[in-house]
């Protein structure tokens, strides 16, 4: 039952990504051209609501549906890791017009060449694992 719930949340996310245009290559291009408010609006709305929800959960020390406390794990401090990794991500995000979530929403919508980007993403992830110890973190 619980497993179906994850599937359901994924469906909601996939519909939201696709219908809002967040999985459109055009919207990503437009965002990096500063030609439209659309993507900034999506992220701004998502972030504003998510900040509110996160702060309320923390203040009220809310529990999840199973009764366990909701914990937020702080990310380890580093600059090169996030900056260099982030730049690589941005290069790919703008070129393919899709980040990992939208890639799979596009696959479902039947834009099959996105499979190439998904294969690339798996290869890139694997390559990171291979060279991790030589990279500045």
């Amino acid at each position, binding site marked *: 039952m619980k497993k179906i719930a994850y*599937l359901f949340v994924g469906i909601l996310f996939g519909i939201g990504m696709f219908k809002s245009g967040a999985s459109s290559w*055009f919207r990503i291009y437009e965002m990096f051209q500063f030609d439209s408010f659309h993507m900034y609006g999506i992220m701004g709305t998502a972030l504003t609501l998510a900040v509110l929800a996160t702060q309320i959960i923390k203040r009220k020390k809310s529990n999840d549906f199973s009764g366990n406390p909701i914990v937020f794990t702080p990310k380890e401090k580093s600059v090169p890791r996030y900056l260099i990794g982030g730049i690589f991500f941005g290069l790919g995000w703008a070129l393919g017009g899709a980040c990992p979530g939208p890639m*799979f*929403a596009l696959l479902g919508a039947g834009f099959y060449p996105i499979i190439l980007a998904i294969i690339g993403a798996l290869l890139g992830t694997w390559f990171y694992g291979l060279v991790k110890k030589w990279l500045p973190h």
Partner: protein
Amino acid sequence: MHWIYEPWPWYVGGIFIATTLVLLLFMGKTFGFSSNLRTMCSMMGAGKTCDFFCFNWKAQTWNLLFLVGTILGGWIAYYFLSVDAAAIPLGENTIQKLSELGFESAGKAYVPTELFGEEAFSSIKTILLLLVAGFFVGFGSRYAGGCTSGHAITGLSNFQLPSLIAVVGFFIGGLIMVHLIFPLLF
């Protein structure tokens, strides 16, 4: 109800993303899509090549189900909740800029048919572009410890400085690609 078939306004998209984050938090999980890529590498046996992929990936089954849901969501959105090939309305100047780069499908399609049409598989250039784009996304998100969902939404909503640095990186990379590299590629 006809609005449902039109492209949705930005605030609806934002509400869907925030709802996803909140639901996952209350289900005892954290919203981060790119960890699925690592899980999939492990499932396919990448653990034989390096330790990074040696972890109990079965504990990530929930996230893989979330991924399957995302695929289904894209399918439902395109086939049952869209009309006119889900064309994205773009501003005149964007259409102009894209047409100068050779993208004639701007304003008429959801994604450029030049990159995502059936003929993409018969163009070596397109195949390479999509593979490289994916490679950078996969490598970059693992190196940076997260993608747009993990950093720009989850991390920033908890005021995490590392996530802000990562998002700044996303934008530096994206701006370099669109403004400096696109004119060389297209």
